[in-house]
């Protein structure tokens, strides 16, 4: 138990990631309001992006721009650019998802005059 606790406290980033992830899922599942569901989805997506950034962080590393001989370099002195590139792409995907989903919610609201899922589903079925 003590080992587990110390392992947890040494990795606060990952604890935050797990909390955000589960919180987002809870909001998505529990709230009947469409916009709140979207917020839940957004939190889940952001938590994964946070995870990507968290595990790629390095102490004392600098910008990975190198000229000259690559073979002689000390890898620990440079930040790994790949996870950050993935992060940027994932954010773009996230924004696109948000755009489409807001358009859908707006169309739903215009059609049914409500943002409450229970109410809308009742009227559909």
């Amino acid at each position, binding site marked *: 138990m003590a080992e587990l606790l110390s392992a947890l406290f040494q990795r606060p980033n990952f604890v935050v990631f797990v909390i955000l992830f589960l919180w987002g899922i809870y909001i998505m599942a529990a709230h009947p309001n469409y916009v709140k569901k979207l917020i839940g989805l957004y939190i889940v997506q952001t938590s994964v992006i946070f995870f990507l950034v968290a595990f790629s962080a390095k102490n004392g590393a600098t910008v990975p721009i190198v000229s000259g001989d690559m073979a002689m370099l000390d890898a620990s002195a440079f930040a790994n650019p790949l996870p950050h590139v*993935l992060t940027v792409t994932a954010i773009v995907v996230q924004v696109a998802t948000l755009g489409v989903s807001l358009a859908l919610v707006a169309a739903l609201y215009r059609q049914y005059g409500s943002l409450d899922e229970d109410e809308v589903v009742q009227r559909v079925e």
Partner: protein
Amino acid sequence: MNSQLPILLFLVPFVTAVAMPILCARRRSWCRPLTTGAVSVMVVLAIMNLRVVVSDGPIEYALGGWTAPIGIAWLDDPLAAIMALTMSAVSLLTLIYGRVAVTSKHDRSIQYHTLILLFVAALIGIVFAADLFNVFVFLEVAALTGYALVGAGGGKALVYAFRYLLLGSFGATLYLLGVSYLYAATGTLNMTDLATRMPELITSTAVVGGLIFVFLGLSIKMALIPLHGWLPGAYANAPNAIAPLLASTVTKVALVAWVRIEYSLIEPGIEVSHIPVLVLLEDIGVLAAVIGGALALVQTDIKRIFAYGGIGHIGLILVGVSLGNSTALAGGLFYLINDAVMQAMLFMIAGAVLHYHGATTLDDLKGISVRSPWITGALVVVAVSMVGLPPTGGFFGKWNIVLGALEAQHYLAVFAVLASTLLTLGYFLRLFSCWFHQPVTIQSERLEIAVSLRLSLGIAAVAMFALGIMSDSIVRVLLESLANGGV
């Protein structure tokens, strides 16, 4: 030229999609010919690509000239070439069909056709991608255009499109999480590179967790039971022209992505904490095949019957690709091609029945056979293939899966194939008993069915038999490719 075929296959629909709003701003009527033309060019390119790949062997395409593992690689092997051809051919088929089915108060044909072309381009991207993150990006492009297309008709479809969006995006997020686990553990995203680092790392919790998240994410996309919740509602309420396109591609292409990952990263017979991984996947497939078929049997809505039938078939294909020998793998992949055509055809029929007769439930179907001989003929052909009778393609896919299961001595898989066949027979008998029922009021005049509908149903029916006749050569190409170490 030949070495550039994969990227051309992607660029043709993509560039057309981007140029569409400019080219058609003043002439709305150009949208449809332009879209159909672009997808026809894709079919021609895909056939050329398949010929090149079969004769010259797989091509590794380095985007922008940067070779793997630094750059992003596309792998153009027989599996990818066959799938690219299937996806573009099925899209062309549904586009021909879509001529009659698009009805809208406002003219949104530019947006609609742009979305379809982007969707098709994303499918090609998923098929060729040999990089885990690239698969994620294309999955999301396909999914986002898919949500918009499902909701395009408005009304009830919006509710289901939103549900599809929530679950689909959540699935993609799980996939991304899995990919970042795998990247953190191995330091690479390229599938070939991952495969070389995998054997010594397969027992690490990060890799196992990553693979589980990747599988969960893709199972939502491929609507594997019990994560199929979004599919029936979305397909039953999507516009008539869209349901065949989505039903025949979305779930299949996610399954193709999983087959690539599974085949390159999970060795047959490997055990993680005493659980044989492939047998577990096979059992999940067995459950999905049986439960999907059983759920189809109790539905009364025609489109829902077909949707659950498709869900059952996804399970069947998963059984085939998880048996761990090449016979079953080739059989499963061949069945996947058939399933794409069958699903397109089923939803085209359901759409036509709704369009011409206003029928959505089994009870509405009574007496249709007298009035619509074309649709009846198409339904009989697709039923023969779904149940799996020779000489249609469905039979040979199931046959190879059964042969592979016997080779691996997994009798549960044989049972799953047989049970799924019986359940399929069951729901088609239910359908036929209404379809060929004598009408209450005799209306003997036949309905005039549009030429494009006849054409698309006719081509699909011929394709069912053509796949059956060519099954031998397709399976042989897949088997040869497997023997050479690729998928």
